[in-house]
């Protein structure tokens, strides 16, 4: 159960933790997230030494390997600024699993101090930045896939929706069984390819059945999975990270 979190006032500076998938596959989503925050007057710091939260190894059982990577991340974010992460999955790892991960390593105070500063991007935009969005885009039909970790671990499914609802020209459509996992699950997609294929195909069917023009998600793992499958099927529906989508629809400078 996601705990009820108390949010601090709008800070002057934040750290941005981009995640490894964003870094290599969806940099525009990371950039959009940072630009959204900067536009509202908060300085965004992007530590160049960040790499990955360590989740892939952690979820594969390789705890020592994961811990070493996680320790390196801790060192990248020394100041007491909020750490904003454009992924429910990686934010969940850093907020909820790091404390367990570091249980025996003697870094407990340090890790707790770190973990409580971690916010998922939409959570940060809604509760701390209290962002006010002006939709500049044309009318569009949108389907939203909220990742399992965003929904259940971080409890930010409502924040995803709240942001999209701020966009006046966006019609949010609801797919059947929207709370069901898309079948990504990190290495699961490779270790259980047949089940994963079945899940992603069901998910894609539910999404295309809504008639949406675009699929939005707050997690790049899901986007890579569902988007990759939609692409493979040659579906016309586009896929976008929620940060990119919001930025594209509210950025006045490029219009």
């Amino acid at each position, binding site marked *: *159960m996601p705990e009820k979190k108390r949010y601090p006032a709008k800070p002057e500076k934040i750290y941005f933790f981009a995640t490894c998938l*964003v*870094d290599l596959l969806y940099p525009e989503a990371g950039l959009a997230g940072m630009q959204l925050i900067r536009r509202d007057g908060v300085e965004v710091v*992007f530590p160049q030494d960040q790499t990955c939260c360590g989740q892939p190894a952690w979820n594969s059982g*390789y705890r020592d390997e994961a811990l*070493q990577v996680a320790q*390196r991340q801790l060192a990248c974010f020394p100041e007491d600024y909020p750490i904003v992460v454009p992924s429910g999955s990686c934010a969940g790892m850093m907020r909820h699993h790091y404390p367990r991960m570091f249980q025996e390593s003697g870094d407990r105070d340090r890790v707790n101090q770190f973990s409580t500063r971690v916010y998922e991007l939409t959570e940060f935009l809604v509760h701390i930045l209290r962002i006010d969005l002006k939709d500049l885009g044309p009318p569009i039909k949108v389907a939203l896939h909220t990742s399992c970790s965003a929904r259940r671990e971080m409890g930010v499914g409502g924040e995803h929706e709240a942001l999209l609802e701020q966009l006046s020209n966006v019609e949010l459509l609801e797919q059947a069984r929207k709370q069901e996992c898309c079948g990504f699950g990190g290495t*699961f997609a490779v270790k259980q390819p047949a*089940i994963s294929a079945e899940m992603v195909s069901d998910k894609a069917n539910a999404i295309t059945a809504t008639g949406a023009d675009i699929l939005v998600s707050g997690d790049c793992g899901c986007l890579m999975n569902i988007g990759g*499958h939609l692409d493979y099927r040659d579906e016309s529906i586009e896929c976008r990270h929620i940060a990119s989508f919001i930025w594209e629809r509210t950025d006045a400078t490029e219009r």
Partner: protein
Amino acid sequence: MQPSADFHTRIEQALDNAQLKASLRSAMDGLMASRKACFPDADELETLRLRGAQIRANSLSKLPQLLQQLEQRCIDNGIQVHWAENVDAANRIVLQIMRSHQAGLLIKGKSMVSEEMDLNRFLESHGIECLESDLGEYILQLAGEPPSHIVAPAIHKTRQEIAQLFNEKFPDIPYSDDVDTLTRSARGILREKFYRAGVGLSGVNFAVAESGTLCLVENEGNGRMCTTVPPVHIAVTGIEKVVEKLEHVPPLLKLLTRSATGQPITTYFNMISSPRKPGEKDGPEEVHLILLDNGRSRIYEDNELVNTLRCIRCGACMNHCPIYTRIGGHAYGTTIPGPIGSILEPQKAGLDNLGELPVASTLCGACAEVCPVRIPIPTLLNRLRYERVRTDYDGTTHGQGSGRRLMEATTWKGWSWLHRNPALYRLAMTLVTRLRKILPLGFEPWTRVRARPRIAAKTLHEQAREEGFNDR
């Protein structure tokens, strides 16, 4: 136990079965909707789940004391208590009781522990007939199949398949695929067995230590039949099913039936505290309670994995599991399938036998979200994945390190090294972006149903610097 190659074969078979897929999907959708309708108030549900978790945790924290108290109360009430280290010992205790009464027919209520014991096969090999009386279990016994769900055992079968089966086994009864007619046929056949059976067997949903009471939850009345009509009643239970007080029963009962099938309560809640007392006109003259360990005390040794034993067997984790919904219970090849089975069974049978199960999960958390006693199933799956590849053998789970493969371990070591050396990481990622057009990115099995991942032209590290985002 089934090696992993079989696991994959069973998965493929299940996925190829369109009928199974449709049956499971509609059954699971129905069960999820019923549960949801039964818990309209989210805060109330969370309070109740917290209470349920607390009751189960409290019971486990005092387990040895409570088992002794339960035993003493039962003996005071006239119930005979037996302890079994393993399945074989438990089976032999049942056999001994059957023999001491010269009983040739055992009629069974639904019991997952008796499935764990493979009791039917054991007794039949000793010339004793075992008959399942729960409608679903009876159907499966006719079909020669194990249950595929712990609450709705025949959920994978269609009405027509069941009608065919009845027609094959009872050619004298006219064919019908009408559910009421099929149910009436089963009632007629089994009634005679209840009448005749020398011994009845049941499981236990909760065993109450303070009063020596065995609680049974059911809808059909077969559980009451098995525990009331034959002259001897044997109850089999895992040692973890004990609860401290009677006042703990109402909240657990409420959680159990609502989580399982979305019923506010089942038709019968049957609380047995003694054999027939002098003057009473019915009920068994003898009641036996068999307490089975079979690996549970080993699970108990680990402070985190012990949470597995909180389970009250509602099956909600299965109903909400996207994997279970795709492959059904038989694919798991274990007594208890689904998320709870994937943490429980590998601990009992060893990770060397069932280590694939904890890996076959997306860790989506739907199971933990609905678990009425808040078992952190994904956390425990993750823990077992660790146990499966760790090499220090410092722990209590069987088969530690058995899933470690050199190739995989080396890959993660390399991955770790790269990701803790930021300069190297940046260089490597930049290289990947530059070489994206010639890198072999069409890797199996990802691209079997997906387009190749699209690598960006520039990493975010580079773009952030270019866009003027500071490093500190």
